[in-house]
């Protein structure tokens, strides 16, 4: 058992700083285990969000040694042993306390997006027929555990704070899961262009790199959505058609 030093962000929106803790690390531990040990033994009131501890719920997002990660899936053995480990909250969201941030913006934005709207059922029993190969790519998007790490690293949100004009990678993945859903009939392209701000994304792929579910956010969700928006609104033939038909 080895002692390791942690520098944990403690405090609230008004005042916060790093506080150092030392704790024992045993085989196989993940960062969340160490945080729990510190919480149980030294800092009972330490605020940390977590649920499943198995990478399935997306609650324990944090920045570990500066890298956005799930604490429950970050093994201590993968971090350098000779220096303190820093654990900070996600920096793109307002701090509530310690490692917990206010992520309610994500929920509010999602609520405003046009919901799933299926075509009439294919069969008399009210069911649909879909080929597995037609849903494979949508199932990739539906793996999302809403950890919001992609939102945390997106510079449009993190540095430029364009929360009013840009919905961020998580919600583009959500939009893609609806737009590419084989039985959805809704069209969300105008919103993607105008209110969701898909044009702001300059495909640096930071989101894809941090996704713990390995969703190919940029290539499979955002770029195809951008292409659809271009086809719909900037295609010269369609433009002419719109002029003549209006």
């Amino acid at each position, binding site marked *: 058992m080895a002692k390791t030093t942690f520098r944990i962000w403690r405090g*609230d929106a008004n005042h916060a700083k790093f506080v150092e803790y030392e704790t024992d690390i*045993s*085989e*196989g*531990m*993940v960062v969340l*285990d160490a945080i729990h040990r510190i*919480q*149980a*033994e030294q800092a*009972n*009131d*330490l*605020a*940390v*969000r*977590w*649920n*499943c*501890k*198995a*990478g*399935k*719920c*997306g*609650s324990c997002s944090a920045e570990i040694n500066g890298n956005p990660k799930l604490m429950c*899936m970050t*093994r201590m053995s993968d971090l350098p042993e000779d220096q303190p480990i820093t654990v900070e909250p996600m920096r793109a969201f307002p701090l*509530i*306390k*310690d490692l*917990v941030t206010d*992520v*309610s913006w994500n*929920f509010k934005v*999602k*609520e405003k997006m046009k*919901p*799933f709207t*299926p075509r009439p*059922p294919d069969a008399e*029993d*009210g*069911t*649909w*027929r*879909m*080929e*597995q190969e037609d*849903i494979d790519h*949508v*199932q990739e998007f*539906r*793996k999302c*555990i*809403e950890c919001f790490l992609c939102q945390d690293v997106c510079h449009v949100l993190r540095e430029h704070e364009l929360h009013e004009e840009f919905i961020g990678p998580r919600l583009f993945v959500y939009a893609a899961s*609806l737009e590419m*859903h084989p039985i*959805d009939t809704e069209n969300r392209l105008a919103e993607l262009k105008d209110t969701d701000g898909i044009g702001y994304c300059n495909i640096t792929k930071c989101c894809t790199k941090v996704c713990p579910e390995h969703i190919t956010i940029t290539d499979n969700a955002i770029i195809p959505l951008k292409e659809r928006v271009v086809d719909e609104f900037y295609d010269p033939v369609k433009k002419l058609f719109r002029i003549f038909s209006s």
Partner: protein
Amino acid sequence: MSAYETYDYDILIIGAGGAGLRAAIEAAASNLSVGLICKSLLGKAHTVMAEGGVAAALANVDERDNWRVHFADTMRGGQYLSNARMAELHAKEAPEQVRELEAWGALFDRTADGSILQRNFGGHQYPRLAHVGDRTGLEMIRALQDHGIHQGIEVHMEHTIVSLLKNGERIAGAFGYEREKGRFKIFSAKAVVLATGGIGKAYKVTSNSWEYTGDGHSLAYHAGAELIDMEFVQFHPTGMVWPPSVRGILVTEGVRGEGGILTNSEGRRFMFDDIPELYKNQTADNPEEGWRYTQGDRDARRPPELLTRDHVARCIVREVEEGRGSPHGGVFLDIAWIKEKLPNAAEHIRRKLPSMYHQFKELADIDITVEPMEVGPTTHYIMGGIRVDADTQMTAVPGLFAAGECAAGLHGANRLGGNSLSDLLVFGKRAGEYAAQFAAENGNAQIDTAQVDAIAAEVLKPFENSPEGDNPYQIQAQLQEMMQELVGIARSQESLTQALEEIQGLAEKARAVHAIGNREYNAGWHTALDLDNLLTVSEAIALAALERRASIGAHSRDDYPEKEEPRAGKYNTVIQKTPDGTMTIRRNLIPELREDLQTIIAEMG
């Protein structure tokens, strides 16, 4: 009197997993106001962790399946202690409920003809579990969440209810706090639905998260509702055992459904050594037949690895105790072996069991396409819970409903895998529907503010207790270790009596625990408050386990290894709070089965 922020709803739903969300959607459909309390953020509840699938006799893969077979399987799995009416409703209504999720955007894996694909699971006679790889729960909760947010439901995230409020006999609302600032809130409601899930955190080794502290069980019990069959705690046979920090994390039964086998340190498939009489006719007697079953051969019988969870868990414990376990105190679960049978086995495993592959690779450095996993039992689910009316899900308290894991009846002495996801859909919907009906027929009940003040004072006590008082985490850990040791898979009069004594001692210490810091997002304070619920459900489990002097389903008594006491008949244990505040237990004989249901069971063998 202090002023509390107050919300007024027709229906208040406490808990936002599958059952709570489904209830909220149904209640909102009646154009009544609905409040939804989430202990965590929306979409993070325990349903998200369900892996293998949702059981429904859709008959997409095997047309011989129908509700009757599902009903008979559920009753057999529950050792005939289930509420037969609930098992009937569940089997009949599950298919429609699964189809409805698809109308809300869920995307289940498909059959060749484009219908919902179904897989094999323990205790289910035919491939019955609709699924999405091994992340079915995530798909379900997301479909419910994304549909639910457009139904006008008011969602309160990161709130905890500490007490139900009553007016005379009937429900009047609930009282709780929000996590962020620690402020108190009153939720006045004409009807309340409890959908708070389980009790796993009463044990040391569990697949459950911090939220699973028996809140609903405890709230209902203290409000005067009855708890039944609390002795039946499901120890899922396959949890991770190594490394120590991941001990208890679930390994889906889907691994065995896809052909995974259990072996001991001698390489023997020990599950073939002990096949219960009740399942002899349905179980393969050689490995070849078992393999054919997992690959869809309709004439083959299922391998013994897919026997019910209670039995598989006991067999694993026996292997370990008799010295044939794996290096870290479990047994081996091997899916990699299928490479002998299938070309591209590694790719097949990664496609069918993606999150298992991921979980072992990242947390244990094990590539499950190459080497076996080490697994052992983990506290997973409680079959017992709040007693409800089978049709309406109403408890003994007028206006108080319960659904999902915190309610009891469907699963009897042992739950079949896949039956919880269908349970929460079928009975979540029913609870929402009948709670709405109750709300429409009854007016508001006045809330007694003096009662609220008293509760609020109690909730703040951990801050006022002497700093000499214990750290709440220590008491929680002591309780978990004690329950694991004394009220675990193997129980006896001696262990249970000792457990009840220790619970009294811990309860005393719990009253004196000290919380440091202030009320804002204070995990220590919350742990102190959760202790009350954990102690209540622990006492109920131990008391019920002491009362049932037999070994049946998930409940095993070393001192009573036989199934039932002679002439005792089939009964439920019923726990209730007496007016003087103590916990009492009695037996309630299960009425004779309706004739048509008896016929079904007889026909299905």
